[in-house]
């Protein structure tokens, strides 16, 4: 009996802690999304968390007047090509490294490993920007996409581990049937890799959709190329920032909502990807 009482009290404390943390976690996100429907006055003076009247015109305004249609298109464009590129490069490289021995394999492997751990920060973006100017690509979105794809070290290791678990006899059987390495890759391995490729795609999409520093550096002089993150945060630096809180919230909501929808549809993949690749690796 005593034990039972102790247990219910314990559970009470436990749930209080968990719910308190949930509120702290959710509050800013809910605040931003609901704030996007408020007037600037309402945001400034406080009041309830719910808007008194839902101001859908905020969305219309940022979409048409504040260039957000353009920003969203840029974000989608960057995300699409960066995800496709990451999938192709990481899977094909992982396949070659895991399944074949070739001259220089160890060097390549060591390079991928070491670049994962060197943290130089924003300094690397300067030479890349100068390179983009030389290649006359600095007024397109391609440098951003290329940098976001990057060296793919983490994803390559994630996929390498997955390929290890696929029996090698499959490739060998295909080889006997006369398939070359590339055909084995796209006809046999890619279909089997779907679960891990879904994880890689999610991660790359998240990285690309949320990236701020790379696109902000590359679009400093080209406002028309800005993706959502840069466009929204730029409002903070603007001269009319004080009168544009509702627009900042609307921009934030436009950026948050798509990724939240994806997260609630696929949150198991997100977490599984982390646990498979991170700690045990």
């Amino acid at each position: 009996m005593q034990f039972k009482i102790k247990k219910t009290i314990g559970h009470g404390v436990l749930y209080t802690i968990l719910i308190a943390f949930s509120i702290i976690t959710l509050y800013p996100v809910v605040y931003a999304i609901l704030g996007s429907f408020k007037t600037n006055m309402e945001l400034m003076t406080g009041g309830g968390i719910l808007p008194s009247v839902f101001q859908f015109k905020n969305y219309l305004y940022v979409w048409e007047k504040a260039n957000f249609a353009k920003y969203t298109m840029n974000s989608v464009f960057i995300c699409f090509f960066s995800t496709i590129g990451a999938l192709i490069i990481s899977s094909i490289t992982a396949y070659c490294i895991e399944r074949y021995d070739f001259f220089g394999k160890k060097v390549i492997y060591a390079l991928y490993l070491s670049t994962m751990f060197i943290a130089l920060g924003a300094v690397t973006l300067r030479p890349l920007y100068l390179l983009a100017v030389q290649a006359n690509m600095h007024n397109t979105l391609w440098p951003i996409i290329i940098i976001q794809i990057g060296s793919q070290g983490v994803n390559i290791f994630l996929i390498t581990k997955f390929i290890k678990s696929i029996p090698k006899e499959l490739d060998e059987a295909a080889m006997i049937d006369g398939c070359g390495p590339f055909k084995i890759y796209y006809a046999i391995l890619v279909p089997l890799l779907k679960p891990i490729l879904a994880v890689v795609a999610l991660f790359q999409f998240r990285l690309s959709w949320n990236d701020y520093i790379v696109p902000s550096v590359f679009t400093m002089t080209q406002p028309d190329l800005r993706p959502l993150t840069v466009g929204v945060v730029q409002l903070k630096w603007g001269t009319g920032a004080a009168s544009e809180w509702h627009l900042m919230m609307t921009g934030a909501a436009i950026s948050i909502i798509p990724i939240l929808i994806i997260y609630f549809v696929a949150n198991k993949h997100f977490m599984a990807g982390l646990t498979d690749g991170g700690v045990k690796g």
Partner: protein
Amino acid sequence: MLCVKSPDLIGMKTTNNDLKEGKHMKNKDKPLTRTRASRSSIKKNKTIYLMLLPGICFLLVTSIYPIVWILRFMFYNYTSFGEFEFIGLQNFVKLAKDEIFFESLINTVIYASGKLVLTMPIAFLLAYFLNMKIKGRNIFRSVFFMPTVISVSIMSMVFYLIFNPYNGSANQLLLNWGIIEAPINWFSREKAMLTILFVAIWGAVGNYMIYFLSGLQTIPQEIYESADLDGAIGWRRLWYITLPMMSPIIQVVVMLAITQAFKDYETILVMTAGGPNGKTNVLYLYIYKLMFPMGDAAGSVVLQYGYGSAVAFVTAIFVGLITIFYLQWSKKMQETY
């Protein structure tokens, strides 16, 4: 060594040598099979190098090239005016006297240790709770992990508005509930770093919670059952059974967290840009400011590419050393216990 099993280049070379000698061999079948094998292995290797090529291009351009660039220009006087000249170690001499660098170094250590000391226990406890068989644990897991999928920059901006001293909702709520009597300036010289830490922890806990959770799930249930029989429940179970069993995983997670905490600067860039008075200026933000103009100030400041490279190099070495020290230390800890 007569038959080529692995299609590697070294193997191929030996077969070619064997072939030349093969003319003098009496057995004519073996060289023939070897020619076929070596031909197909050359072809295969070509395909493999072709398949590796795109990845290697990306590696070279986005990772290797910038490193080489930095290793070169850290010995140069190179500013945004464009001209550059070799100045030897002068950038490093300048760095040794640079007050902003050392101030940023201290701020980085405060930020990183503050983030680690708070994030790790919170993440571990949440993971521990959510590994129990309680109702709604999947919902809690999804909620706590959610901040990690949202853009850091966007959320930093939202937090900037929430913590705004005059109109922000943090002050409004606290005033309404009667917890404080006057609005708090969350971005004052004393509080700015704490506010930044709050936002950083808000965004990081879920990530490490999932790492810990995956570790906790590898602990076999039988151990807990036998612990129950011995009367180890509640906190004692956590302290005497879970923590020791988790120590290898904790070690890896803490290492990941250390490297991440030293690298962070996006939140600070958006929220305070290093202010007030450089109180939240961390090293990577300092590097950013040396290499790129802030906000809309494009073109009005002289950027220091050469000096920035030197600072970045020293910082990377510093972070690397801390990681190595930590690894050594945690190894020792594991040996003693």
